[in-house]
């Protein structure tokens, strides 16, 4: 009686609880709280699914049936903007990977003292809202030594740069967790003794070992970039976010269709991340939160 029951030892637990006076309360407790749990769950699901159902219903109000979707698929702007965001997303992922992987590798292997600084810098995008980053980029790059904001191509560069900055927290976290699960030091020493240079080791040993971690960071980055609106708007880029905003003001049913498609894309990206997290540990299986609000 006096010994506390041990975890996992169900036999002892039930024996004790049925023997003690608190047995009835413990048994009634869970069932009462279970009803409350169901209630909370159902209310939450109503709140979460009602807007989705409403969007679907709204998109189906268009006549003839499904016109909102066929019109969307016939709209060249839809594919152009989605394609633009997709390409920007891919370039962002490549840039971010090429910067973050060597950095995380070097910090882990040779410069552990820099870790707090690097972590701090990668987390700074959380402190700087996208609208402020857009503000700073536009003002500081409109004239002076690098007038990128003045040209179309230059604005593309700024957009990719901004998205790369936004991706750092997720990329760094994913890659750093990935590095923790492999023996970086031994792999590097093995590579050196086989005569490989550091770059070769990074490319043929570290990158392949981090594939899953990089991919999970990449999908999240892609989801963020495709849903992003603020930076694309102020840099005047023909991206998916501004397209949807514009559509929302000028069409009635099509925005509902495109919103659902956008939700579906987020869902696919998250499903991939969840899948990657399941197949390997250290891939950052915890789904992270993006910055497209």
């Amino acid at each position: 009686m006096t010994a506390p029951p041990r975890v996992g030892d169900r036999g002892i637990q039930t024996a004790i609880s049925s023997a003690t006076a608190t047995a009835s309360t413990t048994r009634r407790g869970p069932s009462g709280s279970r009803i409350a749990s169901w209630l909370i769950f159902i209310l939450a699901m109503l709140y979460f699914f009602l807007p989705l159902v409403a969007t679907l219903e709204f998109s189906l109000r268009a006549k003839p049936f499904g016109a909102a979707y066929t019109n969307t698929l016939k709209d060249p702007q839809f594919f152009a903007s989605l394609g633009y965001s997709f390409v920007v997303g891919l370039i962002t992922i490549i840039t971010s990977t090429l910067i973050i992987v060597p950095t995380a590798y070097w910090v882990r292997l040779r410069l552990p003292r820099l870790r707090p600084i690097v972590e701090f810098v990668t987390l700074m995008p959380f402190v700087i809202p996208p609208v402020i980053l857009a503000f700073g980029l536009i003002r500081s790059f409109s004239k002076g030594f690098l007038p990128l904001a003045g040209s179309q191509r230059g604005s593309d560069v700024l957009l990719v740069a901004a998205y790369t900055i936004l991706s750092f927290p997720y990329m760094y976290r994913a890659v750093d967790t990935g590095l923790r699960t492999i023996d970086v030091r031994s792999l590097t020493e093995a590579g050196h003794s086989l005569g490989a240079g550091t770059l070769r080791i990074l490319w043929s040993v570290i990158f392949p070992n981090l594939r899953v971690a990089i991919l999970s960071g990449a999908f999240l980055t892609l989801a963020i970039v495709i849903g992003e609106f603020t930076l694309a708007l102020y840099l005047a880029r023909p991206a998916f976010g501004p397209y949807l905003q514009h559509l929302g003001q000028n069409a009635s049913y099509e925005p509902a269709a495109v919103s659902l498609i956008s939700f579906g894309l987020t869902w696919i990206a998250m499903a991939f991340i969840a899948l990657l997290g399941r197949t390997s540990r250290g891939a950052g299986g915890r789904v992270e939160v993006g910055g497209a609000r």
Partner: protein
Amino acid sequence: MTAQTAEIVEPGTPSARPARRAFNWSFLGVLPFFVFTALFMLFPIGFLVIGSFKDSNAGDAFTLKNYSDLTTTQVARAFGNSIEISLVTAIAGAILGLLLAYAVILGGLPKFLRTFVMTFSGVASNFAGIPLALAFIFTVGNLGLLTVWLKSIFHVDLVNDLGFKILSKLGIEIVYLYFQLPLMVLIIAPAIDGLRKEWREASENMGATPAQYWRYVALPILLPSILGCSVLLFGNSFGAQATAYQLTSGQVPIATLLIGAQISGDVLHNPGLGYAMAMGMVVIMGFAILMYSILQRRSERWLR
């Protein structure tokens, strides 16, 4: 970028290299990262910082006036609205998210519901911006599904009888909860997972009621986590722009929208004030993130 340097050091005779060279070389490995962040993050933000101390009406002389001008009606109202909306959605999101997370983790619901809610939260916390605003317009807007249902079934007019407008602070708050609540579920889940069964059993064995267990055991342990997560939610909502942009078309002045308007055309009629406003936002966000990390560290003491 690091290619040549890596080649130089590598071949053959590493022992012959002086120590100073080796240090320089390893620093070069992280150089691209620091150059990139300096160019595209620190430089632009530094530009705003410097601009916030310049008096644009007096030949860019040093001034603190931009900061004292933050109290002018237009700016103060935008900050006030932003802070109010962020506080409300952070507190409501934290409480509701905690309830939902607790319900699916320890509430005795089937296991698959937990997996479902966690995955869904990952998606929903990323489902924000324009599509989210549109989805709510289709739900509780003038022609929204819920509005139409309530009218036809209960003969209640959401807009005219109840005075609900999506173009209001309440409207924004209800929409923001859509990403605040799932975010809370995601970030509080590890803390709830960390509540050990032994603690509950021990307190029950000593005759504690569930209320006492919560009051004296669970809540004190969870409190740093809950507070930390609430602060993070505050920042999350404070920096949001796209959702409000679509929802209100600028009719409810909040800080991010005012900054946006300042980017497109100097609506404050003072560039320096715009920069000072941006700095004010960064300071508030920085404070929120700092509090979050401090509280998070505190909560780790108990959990695992």
